[in-house]
């Protein structure tokens, strides 16, 4: 497995605060990689650095072997990067379908001339894009609400719109910032299945999440951030048993519950 995303010495400072502190991280192609850490650890900032919304103070970011730290966000999207936002940012006046179609911008080929002339190619492209968008909506369970303005959806549903919008172009790397926030355990489980399916479809996933059950369940690798620094990196099992992680992040109770749950993983699943 080669590294699809690699950061070296990635650093972002704000006046008097190092939000991301020389992070070296590798996300391999085809894996589900989780980024966890206490509140304010710098996870979202790291996402902003990777997706190009914040400029790094130092360090490099390579995507599929290409240095992207200097590229603007839209160019990175064209290279196959997609993301969702922790603080939801749907286009609220646009319909749900239009939101997802906007996510498909990197897949659009027709230019101004074709648009004005309504060439057959343009028509064909519009049809395929709509079809793809509907598939994405189907995937998150929102197909029935395609024509409603996105701003009129509930919080959890808007989060689904964001996910659909991000997965529609079948990106090479998908960044999900707390996708399960605002979803109940049953919905979270469904989300887990969805993320796996996305991965199986060929998209590498990097996600931030505080729901440990969810993270431990689905991820192939975990990176732990604390005060901007990477304090631990490894498989879920390794991370779970790291005392530092336990102290900085999980707390006794959660760690115990996790241990219990995964120790009896087989048994638990059978009984359910």
């Amino acid at each position: 497995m080669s590294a699809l995303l690699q950061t070296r010495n990635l650093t972002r400072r704000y006046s008097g605060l190092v939000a991301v502190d020389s992070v070296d991280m590798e996300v391999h192609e085809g894996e589900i990689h989780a980024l966890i850490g206490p509140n304010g650890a710098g996870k979202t900032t790291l996402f902003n650095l990777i997706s190009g919304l914040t400029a790094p103070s130092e360090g490099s970011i390579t995507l599929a072997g290409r240095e992207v730290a200097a590229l603007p966000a839209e160019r990175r999207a064209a290279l196959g990067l997609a993301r969702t936002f922790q603080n939801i940012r749907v286009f609220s006046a646009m319909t749900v379908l239009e939101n997802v179609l906007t996510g498909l911008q990197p897949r659009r080929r027709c230019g101004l001339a074709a648009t004005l002339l309504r060439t057959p190619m343009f028509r064909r492209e519009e049809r395929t894009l709509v079809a793809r968008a509907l598939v994405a909506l189907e995937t998150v369970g929102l197909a029935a609400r395609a024509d409603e303005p996105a701003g009129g959806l509930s919080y959890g549903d808007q989060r689904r719109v964001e996910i659909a919008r991000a997965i529609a172009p079948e990106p090479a790397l998908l960044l999900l910032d707390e996708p399960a926030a605002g979803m109940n355990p049953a919905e979270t489980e469904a989300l887990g299945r969805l993320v796996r399916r996305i991965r199986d479809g060929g998209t590498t996933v990097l996600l931030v999440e505080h729901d440990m059950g969810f993270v431990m369940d689905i991820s192939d690798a975990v990176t732990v951030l604390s005060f901007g620094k990477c304090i631990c990196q490894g498989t879920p099992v390794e991370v779970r048993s790291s005392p530092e992680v336990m102290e900085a992040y999980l707390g006794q109770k959660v760690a115990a519950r996790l241990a219990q749950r995964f120790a009896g993983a087989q048994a638990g699943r059978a009984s359910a």
Partner: protein
Amino acid sequence: MDLSWLDDFLWTYQNVIHSVGINGLLALSMYVVLAVGQLSLGQAAFMGLGAYSAALMTLKLGWPFWMVLPLSCVVPILFALAIGLPTLRLSGVYLAIATVGLGEVLKALYVNIDYVGGALGLTGIPEATETWMIYGLLALAVLAFWLVARSGIGRAMEAIREDETAARVMGVSCFRYQLGALVVSAMLAGIAGALEAHSTSLISPGEFGFEPEVSILSFALLGGIGTPIGPVVGAFILTLLPELLRGMADLRLVFNGVIIVVAVLFMPEGLVALRLRRRSA
């Protein structure tokens, strides 16, 4: 059948008819920048550049109108590129004021340069604008905007309007769209300027400052910017209103203002509060 009354009617209202159409074009040139979420107030300045460059081509170079008209958008476009590059990173009112600045600087230049007539401006511009030219261009522009709005480009524009950051993450190059919109805006305004110059035989610096800019903005806002039809409707109404209210003497402008207030209070999205549906399936 005696149609001479029609001739009379058309003669009497010729300038009104021209103004309505030209203002329609200006309203569209405002619409296109508003459509990418920018409050750029350089349209009157672009119009001035179009009007001056066209009038100079006609008066000083003696070029025929069919050449002048398409060329009238060249200077405005060059200016749009020149000011767009540094100012587009500004947002909202900051951009608005920076672009108003362009208009004020140009006005000072026109006033101070004798070659372009100083405070008087350029006079004796031959009448060459025909009604069909104005309305033909207007129809073409509306159609083009309509087609664009109902396409991926239109979606990208609306996304920029709603949330630039999110749009960029979707791969939309805000800068390219916004610069493009500014160039199209300059092109339309420039052509409108050329049509105006060759319709009224005089252009002077005062016509392209802050006040006309505010009127152009009101065309677009009163009509509503959900569709390209809205701004044109707004321009039609606000251009005709002063003529219709001619009888009211002193209170004409008061009434004009009250009508705008009432219209907006009851239809804050504009008179044409439609939203395009882009779903083709």
